[in-house]
């Protein structure tokens, strides 16, 4: 072969270069194949339910007594993972007075297992929080929302107020009774967030979940007597909502 002005190089050196380039190429391929580990989804789970302070978007704690009763706005906060939104409700009667939500036993119609809902918290024991993801097929707020007293949702049992109703397929839940099923098609109650109220500071904490596993998380459609009391499936399949606090955001209620 006639070479350009660069000159002719002996065969041995050229072969050695070819070998070097091949080895370098193979090592780059092998080294970067390690990058396929990127396809392995990280195992993210929180080891236990975290105790998170409810704060507003500026990081200031939410005061329990300032949460509007039957509020025109729906307060949402993620817990325990960032893809698990929950509705924070201050329940009241037709006159706009807070209503005490008593502890109650909630039954899962799917298989009859039951659990104890601890009731409302706050100065009037009227503050509750439920998953904002419907247990039927996973529709979420704003499709599923709270209908305050006087605002009727059209359900298979006729117009009803004081319910959480999902407009996707019509599932209806009773927030005054632990999120129990009022009408299907859902066969499971809404998971509830167990809240804690600090009387001295008027601040609220989310401490754990109770009831079925949140829709879409491991074991959500197979509740057992054990999991409804401690739905650890909620802790898998997402990133933690926060380490010490979780942010409450207000949205207008489409039911109004």
């Amino acid at each position: 072969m006639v070479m350009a002005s660069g000159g002719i190089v002996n065969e041995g050196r050229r072969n050695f270069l070819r070998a070097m380039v091949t080895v370098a190429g193979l090592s780059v391929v092998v080294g970067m194949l390690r990058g396929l580990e990127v396809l392995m989804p990280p195992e993210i789970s929180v080891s236990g339910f975290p105790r998170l302070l409810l704060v507003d978007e500026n990081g200031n704690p939410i005061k329990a007594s300032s949460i509007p009763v039957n509020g025109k706005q729906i307060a949402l906060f993620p817990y325990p993972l960032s893809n698990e939104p929950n509705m924070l409700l201050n329940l009241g009667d037709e006159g706009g007075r807070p209503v005490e939500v008593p502890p109650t036993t909630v039954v899962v119609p799917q298989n009859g297992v039951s659990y104890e809902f601890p009731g409302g918290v706050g100065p009037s024991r009227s503050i509750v929080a439920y998953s904002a993801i419907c247990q039927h097929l996973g529709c979420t707020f704003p499709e599923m929302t709270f209908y305050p007293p006087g605002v009727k949702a059209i359900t298979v049992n006729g117009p009803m107020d004081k319910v959480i109703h999902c407009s996707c397929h019509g599932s209806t839940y009773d927030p005054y009774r632990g999120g129990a099923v009022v009408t299907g098609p859902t066969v499971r109650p809404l998971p509830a967030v167990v809240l804690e109220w600090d009387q001295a500071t008027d601040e609220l904490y989310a401490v754990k979940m109770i009831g079925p596993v949140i829709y879409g998380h491991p074991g959500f459609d197979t509740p057992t007597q054990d999991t409804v009391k401690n739905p650890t499936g909620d802790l898998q399949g997402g990133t933690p909502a926060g380490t010490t606090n979780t942010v409450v955001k207000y949205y207008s209620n489409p039911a109004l």
Partner: protein
Amino acid sequence: MSRRSFLDWLADTFHLRDVPFMGVPDYMFNIEYWLGAIATAALAWQALTGLILLLYYQPSNAYDSTMAIIHTVPFGSILLSSHLYGAYVMIFAVYAHGLEVFFRGAHKRPRGAQWVLGVLLFAMTLGVSFVGYSLTGDVLSVDAVGVGKGILTALGLSGIIPVFFGNGTQLDLFTRFLGWHIILAGAIILFFALHFYLAEQNGFMPDPKEVGYKAPAMLRRDDPRIKPWWPRNFTFMLAIVLLTWGIILLIPSILAIPQVLDKVPILFSPYPGPSPTSPQASSVPAYPPWFFLFMYKMADMPFGLATDIVMGIFIPLIVLLVVPALDRGDLLHPLDRPWVTALFIMGLTWVIELSVWGAIQPGVPVEPVWFVLTIIPPVIISFGGMYAIRRLWVKVRGRVVGLAGNDASSKAGFRLSKDVAIVLGYLTSIVAIVAIAVSFTLNPISNGPYVGMMWGTALISLAASLLTYFYTEYL
């Protein structure tokens, strides 16, 4: 030689000697002729990393899922930051390719359609980047969405806001952005295929000296200097791709090193900005991505947003599209088509000037006097300067263009000795092997930027050793 027979086996099995791609003369193995290839290599990287990002991105949880890619997915920080810098490199390469084509007159007949497709690819590249940039859901993304909606409203097109930005919920916004990002990326790949097909069919633009700076500048298919595509073009192409990918990995990885990251201005940060709901968000000025700064500054001009946008987006785009019609003559040399050349220099000056200004004073309204002081001088300097150079050019043109008859390779410059090249090839191969070895000692989550640096170094070194191989073997 077992290696040689392996390459032969590869060529036979995959009919690589028969691929219908055009071979090129030796002088085209020069980066100047491969700017489009760099853009394409970046596009390939974007498709690859984009499809993997699709496995992790959640429109329902845009910001948190993006940050989770960086902090929890193995090699995730490299994946995300190289997708960003892949876009930057692609935009940069598209600019370089377009300017190169213009100044060489490569848009002239018979390549007018290639130019128009190229301008559309340029516009779609900027569009897909805007959407991709907004997908992160950080504070800049929220600002960008606000600006985008404002622009549509100012143009009287508020009716189509839902087409791009959805029905008003965050979920619909990011679901649509993801959809549009993928639709535009798919469209870019389709348009690229057509653009490349035309480039192959029209043949590559030869050195304009060879054709006396006159269109049509064609390389004859039976030119004896053209050697087959396999293995020469393939090897060179592989080196260009590896080099591009190496740069795409290396730059953001260096910027992502914790000690460096703090000092990187947000416009060039390899990671998303703060969450729009975080307290830090208020300290971040509303910046568009750097490649849109010129448009953003145009929106500050004192003529009302609608006029500003028409001047900043639509008129430049239309002018670019009709360049083949504006610049119809057969003369290729930029000084032989002075007014279009001056127009391009003026436009390029405006883009740079407005971008720098936009970075320094984002969103600050412009007083009419400052508009005049920044917009008028480039007009006078470009056209006046071109007029002055023209007067000189007509005197020397005959001599400069007359020399063109000689073969392009006659310009005997510095040539690297092949013995030296071979030693460089050994060294760069070793660097690549060492960099990969080091990368194995690093953790894919906590040491992401360092892994990226090692991979980038390895790819660039491998590209360099492949180029020395190409040089000693084929040139």
